[in-house]
């Protein structure tokens, strides 16, 4: 069991650490030229606590129209969005001039935000229209760790294929504070927005097409700014979920044998499965587990992340344990479901569970379906389905489905489909 935990840890860590330590990339003359030409369009974005008048979060941003529209990351501004009465958003220009910003709209799924300055400056960046090829040099600007504006040179490594939310893989070192800064091609056009890093030169950018879409949405409702952010964010999450769930539910699923059971494997290419097994001489049982999950998580606030789907299988067989001893062991595996660290008390309620026997593929299972609702987004739930087959004296399959931030209808459809795929017998 300990190994599973370690592996999950690795997956989580790869999936979305917002900070990392990397080596400073080499600076060429080209970087120097781009920095000099475009640093005036790049800003530091500060979230200022109104009670102390001190900044509590920093990020970067850039102006992309003459009218003073700036782009940054949603996660940079999340505090100001959830508690506008406690925080204000300010910009700091290259020459030290500061001013207030108004949040116009966000794209929570792709972690983007468009803000506006009342006193626009003349310098701005324009969007790239061309597609880059893998290996192209690109440049990322931002203000890491509040140390001052910097430029980082790295390589464009294409769009991540195995991702629910498409991101550009950038081989360069983004650091905290650079979030929201622009990534530019050698003509100085924006190809993406800095968003996150997994450390050691593995960083991610949001493709500029999503910023273009968000900007179009902003221009579509200039006179009616968003007032109910929670509802707005909820709508975005549900729309996004409906899109990928429709694809997920209509596709044919990969079949994976686990012990004597055939179950769903990598449902779509966005799921990655890890597996391991143990057959120790001194132990009286064997187990083999497979753990599949999406690697994308959507940032909602400092304490709340969502969007991930995980499912796990654990095939346990006895090597000479009598049924009573085997079921004691089996029960211990069943007792501890996934630990949920994606939300805190302000974000979600307690889990409610329903436990019963159920027939799946002519086999008897003990099943427990649990759900908790999100307090700010009441149409969304975290769910857990834990099941154990219970009619074999010396072997059994444990399975678990975890879906974060899913609507009731989609949760039921997904679980139904998932259980339909289970076939007992080789």
């Amino acid at each position, binding site marked *: 069991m300990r190994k599973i935990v370690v592996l999950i840890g690795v997956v989580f860590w790869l999936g979305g650490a917002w900070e990392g330590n990397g080596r400073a990339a080499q600076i060429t003359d080209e970087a120097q030229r781009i920095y000099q030409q475009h640093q005036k369009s790049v800003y530091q974005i500060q979230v200022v606590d109104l009670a102390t008048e001190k900044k509590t979060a920093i990020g970067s941003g850039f102006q992309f129209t003459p009218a003073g529209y700036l782009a940054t990351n949603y996660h940079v501004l999340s505090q100001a969005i959830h508690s506008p009465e406690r925080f204000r958003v300010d910009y700091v220009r290259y020459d030290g001039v500061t001013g207030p910003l108004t949040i116009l709209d966000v794209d929570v799924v792709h972690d983007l935000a468009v803000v506006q300055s009342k006193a626009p400056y003349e310098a701005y960046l324009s969007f790239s229209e061309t597609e880059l090829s893998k290996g192209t040099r690109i440049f990322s600007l931002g203000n890491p760790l509040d140390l001052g504006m910097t430029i980082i040179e790295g390589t464009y490594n294409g769009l991540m294929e195995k991702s629910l939310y498409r991101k550009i893989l950038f081989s360069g070192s983004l650091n905290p504070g650079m979030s929201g800064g622009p990534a530019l091609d050698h003509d100085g056009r924006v190809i993406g927005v800095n968003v996150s890093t997994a450390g050691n030169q593995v960083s991610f950018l949001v493709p500029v097409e999503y910023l273009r879409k968000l900007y179009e949405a902003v221009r579509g409702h200039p006179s009616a700014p968003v007032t109910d952010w929670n509802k707005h964010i909820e709508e975005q999450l549900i729309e996004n979920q409906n899109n990928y769930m429709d694809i997920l539910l209509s596709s044919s699923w990969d079949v994976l044998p686990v012990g004597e059971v055939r179950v769903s494997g990598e449902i779509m290419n966005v799921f990655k499965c890890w597996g391991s097994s143990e057959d120790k001489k001194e132990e009286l049982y064997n187990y083999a587990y497979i753990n599949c999950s999406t690697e994308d998580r959507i940032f909602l606030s400092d304490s709340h992340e969502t969007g991930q789907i995980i499912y796990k299988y654990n095939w346990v067989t006895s090597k000479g344990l009598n049924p009573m*001893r085997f079921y004691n062991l089996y029960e211990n595996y069943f007792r501890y479901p996934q630990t949920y660290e994606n939300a805190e*008390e302000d974000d979600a309620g307690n889990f*409610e569970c329903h436990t019963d026997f159920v027939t799946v593929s002519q086999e008897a299972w003990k099943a427990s*379906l649990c759900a908790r609702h999100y307090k700010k987004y009441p149409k969304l739930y975290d769910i857990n389905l834990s099941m154990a087959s219970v009619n074999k004296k010396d072997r059994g399959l444990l399975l678990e489905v975890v879906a974060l931030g899913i609507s009731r209808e989609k949760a039921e459809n997904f679980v139904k489909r998932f259980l339909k795929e289970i076939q007992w017998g080789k």
Partner: protein
Amino acid sequence: MGKIIIEVFHTHRNRHDHKVFEADKISVGRGYQNDLIIPDPHVSAEHIQIQASGYGWVVEDLDSENGMFVKKYGKVLKKAYLESGDEVVIGKTRLRLVSPLHPVEPAERLIITNRFFKKLSQPVYAWGMVFMLFLLYALDYHLGTSENLAVEKIAVTAVGVVVGVMVWAGLWAFVGRLIKHKAQFLFQLAITAMYFILLLPLDTISNYLGYYTSSAVVGGICLAALFGTLFSILLILNLKIATNISRRKRIMVSNLITGVIFAIITLSYFANKSEFNPNPVFYSVLKPPFIKISPRRDVDQFLKDGQKVFEIKPAKK
């Protein structure tokens, strides 16, 4: 000349005396000239006079300061006719008048008469019980692990239970030694061991019940009820062997102690329970399929029943 016994209850001193008189007329008061002297400051020097009459006595108040309260009439009277067993209260002292032929309760037995318990307190059976306890707990520990542990390791755990049982029995034997001047250690040991032996099957029964009904409530209530009843019975027996208190009191005290223990456990559970638990908690007991299970529910019905987990409960203020 008739014989009269007067039982004097000194309420404030929590003791009582018996005075036997061979006279037809007895004077009662605080003064030293009386036949029965009552050192109660609320009693007058010459308080009442008792005069034999027929099968009983006529009791008369001698113009005392505080009067005479007759228990069977429930009021203060100047003069009353009392029979054997009747009581009067003067000042703060209660007097019970009894004739020599007044019947008494049969004696309580000092020795156990119940054949089963008698056998149990013989050394062979008592120690046999303890040995059985040891074996059962060792087996239970063995069944609970998936490793093949060394015999010593299993034995150590079971020995722990045995020592606990012996300490409990020892404490009650000590109480018995103090109160009844009779320890009866083996008897205490035998019933305590029996209690712990019975716990194991009861625990299993409640787990199975909870498992088959898929309900933590059923499993939990069953466990609490069985454990509680059994613990009460253990205490009643412990008290019976070690003390002289009446059957009614024994049952009351035992139930009270059990109730208090349950209250403490329940309270501490709710006191320590945090309002927010980030992880799901469900009744996770699994039992080997000695009886094949064929659930009546398929996935659709299961999900239909499970819809309640999506209902949002109003937040508690």
